[in-house]
C-alpha cells in the first residue's frame, strides 16, 4: 500500500538502499569537475581521479593514456558496484536491477550484428560491448543473417526474446533494418519496464513512470530529428515511438509528420515540461538539444533520491553514474584535442 513502505521496505531493501545512497555521495561534484576542466593532459586527469573512487581502477594504467581507457576503467567501477548490488538483491529488486541492463543488451546485440554485416572480427566487437549488457551466447550472434535466425539461434533464450515479436522478419539484415530493429526492441523494452514498475506500485511506480516517460519522449524526439531527410517513412517513424509518455498519442502524431527541426520545436513547445528544454536551444543550435535533455534528465534523477523506500534510486544512481562517465569522456576528449574552451559545452553537473 502506497505510503506504508516504511514498515516493510527495509526488511529486504534497506541494506541495498543504504549502499546505493552511499555510492551516490561519491559522485563527482562541481569542484571536482572544475579541477578536471583545468587539466592540461590525460595524465593530469588520471592524477585528479586518483583521489576519487576511480583511483584504484586507473592507478595501474600506463602512460600515455587514451580517452577510451579512462572510459573503460570508469565503466568497470560501475559494473562492479552493479554486480555487488545484484548479487545481494532479492526479488523483486533483482528483476528490477536486471531490467536496467536490457538497454545495454540491445546495444550490444546491434553492435555485433552491425559489425558482422561489415565483416569485422567478432572478438574485436566483443571487446567493444558494454559489460552491463553481456550474456552467454552473445558471440553466436555473428552467424545470423536475418532477424528470424537471430531470434531462433540466440535471442530466444535471452531476456530480449519477448521484445522480438514485433520485428521478426525473414528479410536480410541491412543498415536500415538493423536500425528499425534497434528502435523496435528498445520501444518494447521501455514499455515492458514501465509495466513491471506499475506492478510494483507505490513510490517505485510513481517515480519510475515519470523517468521512463521522459526517456520515451526523448527517444521520440531523437528518432524524429535523426530520421529527417532519410528513407524512413512517416509510418515507420510512427511505429518506433513508445506507447506511453507525455507525448503519447497526440504529440507522436505531430512528430511523425515533421520535416525539419523547427517543426519539431513547434510540436514540443506545446508541452510545458519541454518548453524549458527548447527555450535553452536557439534557432539553428539543434546540436545543443542533447545537452539540454541531459540536464533535464539529471534534474529528475536527482529528485528520485529525495524520497525513501523505493527502487527508483537504483535506476537513478546507475543513470547518474553513466552521465558522470560521459562527462569524464567529454573532458578527456577536450583535453586530448587541446579544445578546453569547449569543455563546458557538454558537461552536466550532477550536484
Amino acid at each position: 500500500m502506497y505510503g506504508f513502505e516504511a514498515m516493510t521496505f527495509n526488511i529486504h531493501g534497506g541494506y541495498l538502499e543504504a549502499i546505493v545512497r552511499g555510492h551516490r555521495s561519491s559522485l563527482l561534484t562541481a569542484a571536482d569537475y572544475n579541477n578536471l576542466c583545468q587539466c592540461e593532459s590525460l595524465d593530469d586527469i588520471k592524477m585528479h581521479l586518483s583521489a576519487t573512487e576511480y583511483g584504484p581502477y586507473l592507478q595501474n594504467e600506463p602512460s600515455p593514456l587514451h580517452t577510451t581507457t579512462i572510459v573503460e576503467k570508469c565503466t568497470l567501477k560501475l559494473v562492479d558496484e552493479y554486480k555487488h548490488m545484484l548479487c545481494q538483491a532479492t526479488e523483486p529488486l533483482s528483476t528490477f536491477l536486471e531490467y536496467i541492463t536490457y538497454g545495454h543488451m540491445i546495444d550490444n546485440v546491434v553492435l555485433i550484428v552491425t559489425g558482422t554485416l561489415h565483416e569485422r572480427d567478432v572478438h574485436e566487437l566483443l571487446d567493444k560491448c558494454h559489460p552491463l549488457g553481456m550474456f552467454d551466447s552473445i558471440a553466436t550472434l555473428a552467424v545470423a543473417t536475418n532477424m528470424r535466425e537471430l531470434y531462433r539461434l540466440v535471442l530466444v533464450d535471452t531476456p530480449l526474446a519477448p521484445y522480438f515479436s514485433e520485428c521478426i522478419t525473414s528479410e536480410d539484415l541491412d543498415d536500415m533494418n538493423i536500425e528499425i530493429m534497434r528502435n523496435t526492441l528498445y520501444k518494447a523494452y521501455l514499455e515492458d519496464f514501465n509495466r513491471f514498475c506499475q506492478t510494483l506500485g507505490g513510490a517505485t511506480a510513481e517515480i519510475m513512470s515519470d523517468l521512463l516517460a521522459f526517456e520515451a519522449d526523448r527517444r521520440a524526439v531523437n528518432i524524429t530529428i535523426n530520421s529527417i531527410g532519410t528513407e524512413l517513412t512517416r509510418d515507420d517513424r510512427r511505429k518506433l515511438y513508445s506507447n506511453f509518455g507525455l507525448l503519447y498519442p497526440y504529440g507522436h502524431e505531430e512528430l511523425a509528420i515533421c520535416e525539419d527541426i523547427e517543426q519539431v520545436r513547434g510540436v514540443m513547445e506545446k508541452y510545458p515540461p519541454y518548453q524549458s528544454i527548447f527555450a535553452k536551444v536557439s534557432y539553428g543550435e539543434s546540436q545543443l538539444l542533447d545537452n539540454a535533455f541531459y540536464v533535464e534528465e539529471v534534474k529528475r534523477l536527482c529528485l528520485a533520491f529525495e524520497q525513501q523506500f523505493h527502487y527508483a534510486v537504483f535506476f537513478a544512481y546507475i543513470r547518474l553514474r553513466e552521465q558522470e562517465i560521459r562527462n569524464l569522456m567529454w573532458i578527456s576528449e577536450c583535453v586530448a584535442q587541446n579544445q578546453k574552451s569547449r569543455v563546458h559545452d557538454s558537461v552536466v553537473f550532477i550536484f
Partner: protein
Amino acid sequence: MGSLSSSLRQGWLELSSARHSMGNSRISSVLFDMKPHSSATTVDLTVSLPVNVPHTTQPHFSLLKWGSRGDEKSPSVEVDGKTPSQASSCSGRTICGLLLLKCGRRRSKALSMFGALVPPKLRVAQGSFETSLEAIIEIANTRSTILSALGRLQTVDLRS
C-alpha cells in the same frame, strides 16, 4: 593552412561530440565497413605542360566528391545520359537538383556504417572533414602553381 587546421580540429571535436551523445558502441572504429567498396570521394590528377617552358609540368588536383566531377556548384556529371550543357536551361536546373539529391544520398550512405539514423552532430562532423579535404586540395594546387612559377623563373634566369 590555418583554415585547414581549424576545420580538422572542428571535425574531430564534432565527432567526439557525436560519440558523447550516441555512445561509444555506436561511434567506433570497429563499425568501419571492411567489405570491398569503391571510394565515394577521389582525387583526380591532371598534368599540364606550360607552352613557353619546355620540360616542366604543372600538376592540378581536383576533388571528385560523392562521385561527381567538378564541384557541386558547377557539376558536369551526366545524369540520365545528358549533361547540364546538353539539356535546356529548365531541365538543366532539374539535372543540377537531381545531382545534388544524388550527392546528398551518397553523403548519407557514407554515414550509414554508424547506423541509418544518425544525429545532426555526425553530419556536421562530416561537413567539417569535407571542408578540410577541399582545403587540402586548394593547398596542393597552390603549391603546384608556386612550384611551377619557380621553375619558369629559374628557366628565365638560366636563359639570361
